């Protein structure tokens, strides 16, 4: 399975991850190789197999609906690159 430059560009936008031209060339080759390798799974017949997403048999676990202490606002904002009046500051979404 070869990945085209166009597909990679699309993925880069979906993943919000800018790629330089140099990255694109290298990743295109490397990711195509990896996809070629993982394609071997297609050999297996899995029609009647249930998918596994959790291995220890746990199902939905809810904690008690009670008020608990959460991270204080000041602490939560401590690592923010930009903040304003107790909020995270972001750039405009639209130009």
């Amino acid at each position, binding site marked *: 399975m070869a990945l085209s430059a166009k597909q990679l560009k699309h993925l880069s936008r979906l993943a919000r991850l800018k790629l330089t031209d140099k990255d694109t060339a290298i990743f295109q080759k490397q990711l195509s190789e*990896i*996809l070629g*390798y993982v394609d071997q799974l297609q050999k297996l017949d899995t029609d009647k197999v249930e998918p596994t997403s959790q291995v220890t048999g746990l199902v939905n676990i809810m904690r008690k609906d009670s008020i608990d202490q959460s991270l204080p606002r000041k602490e939560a904002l401590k690592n923010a*690159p930009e903040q304003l009046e107790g909020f995270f500051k972001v*750039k405009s979404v639209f130009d």
Partner: protein
Amino acid sequence: MTIPEIHKEFHTKKTTALELVQRAIEVIEKKEKNLGAFISLDIEAALKAAEKVDERIEKGEELGILEGIPFALKDNIMMKDKNVTCGSKILEDFVAPYDATVVERLKKAGAIVIGRTNMDEFAMGSSTETSFFKKTRNPHDFNRVPGGSSGGSAVAVASGEVVFGLGSDTAGSVRQPAAFCGVVGLKPTYGTVSRYGLVAMASSLDQIGPLARNVIDTVLVQSVIQGADERDATCVSDERNNPVYDLESIQNLGVKDLKIGIPKEYFTKGLDKRIAEKIGEAVELLKKQGAQVILVSLPHTEYAIATYYILCPAEVSANLERYDGIRYGYSAAVDSDEETKNLFDVYFKSREKGFGNEVKRRILLGTYVLSEGYYNAYYLKAQKVRTLIAEDFKKVFRQVDILVTPTTPTLPFKLGEKLDDPLQMYLSDVCTVPASLAGVPALSLPCGIVYENGKKLPVGIQLIADYFKESLLFQVGYAIEKLQK
């Protein structure tokens, strides 16, 4: 010296906690330049903590078994008010706002943190070379990798910089560096150790585990960090998750009449002959002690790496969405070298500059396998093959008690050897990935030395048991350790 021996020396006043920490610091000062195991150190705090332990000894108080024991944390486990970088530029200046549950428990047990160790960026890698900060070297040969991703913790333990370390294992990241560095490493059953405060990589697989110099030390650390935690819903809270281990039985039960399975798929042509020989010798020793050795098969083993490299990137692409340059971490918006016009630009450029190549590859791969039109062919398919791999283990554990395999197919490889060939790097986890996908526990321990170009390179043997059967791993691991002496 083992932890119980150190503990005894504290009480008989043969050594003090302060001396032990000072010795650790001396080793670090002498060796760290060559090894590069640590990203950050807590020297002052460690000395102070040791003095407090010594005061307790002076007063004649009884210490806990881990009290005063110096250890290292992998740098993806949070410790309040300390940096936690995950080996990434994007978290270079991030300060942890709270303690991970495992850190809270080790602090309470009185163990002393010496520092946080180097790792592959976000635990993605098998050589500790993808760290943004530095490369860590194998203490047995500086030209070779220590394995990864918990390479820093493995090296810190192997070189005597600390008594034990914590790592995280998603596909072999505790076991493979343990094997390459000649120490013991445990990947516990998925869900036995709380991951609250562990920075997530692939959540259906990540598990914290100890690295130590011997099996008994490993047991002692595991019994402190293991157990239910309501802050991690994936941490098992029923009676299966029992952190109490009986040291007497572990040391005395031996292997007589145990059924030991040798899965043929782990001994194929890709395996270094010298490693196969060492494993063979260990198996012979077990046989002599009365173990019954049975050749078994786990037929889907060959599909494990392919399955992993769909599921792991998929989970990575979702888990790493949080690094957006807004709430924490590196942000292009405040970087004077970057121009950002709008929010999209902030995401786009922060992630470009903040992440290294392996992380980028996995995010892109994960985005691809989860994207419209490809989900069924890749992600769902891999989840189904995961079921087949887990069933292989369930079936085989009806036949045998424990499996014995190599931990790695090769000896520690050279720095740079696989860095530009991701697929080759991925294949180095071929022996450790299956147990991760199934969620069963596995232990790697030293199994002899191979000489190459005048260097002594360690070989690791892997034991795999059924879910929650860590005590059996410890029992057989201890027997192997003893037989080799």
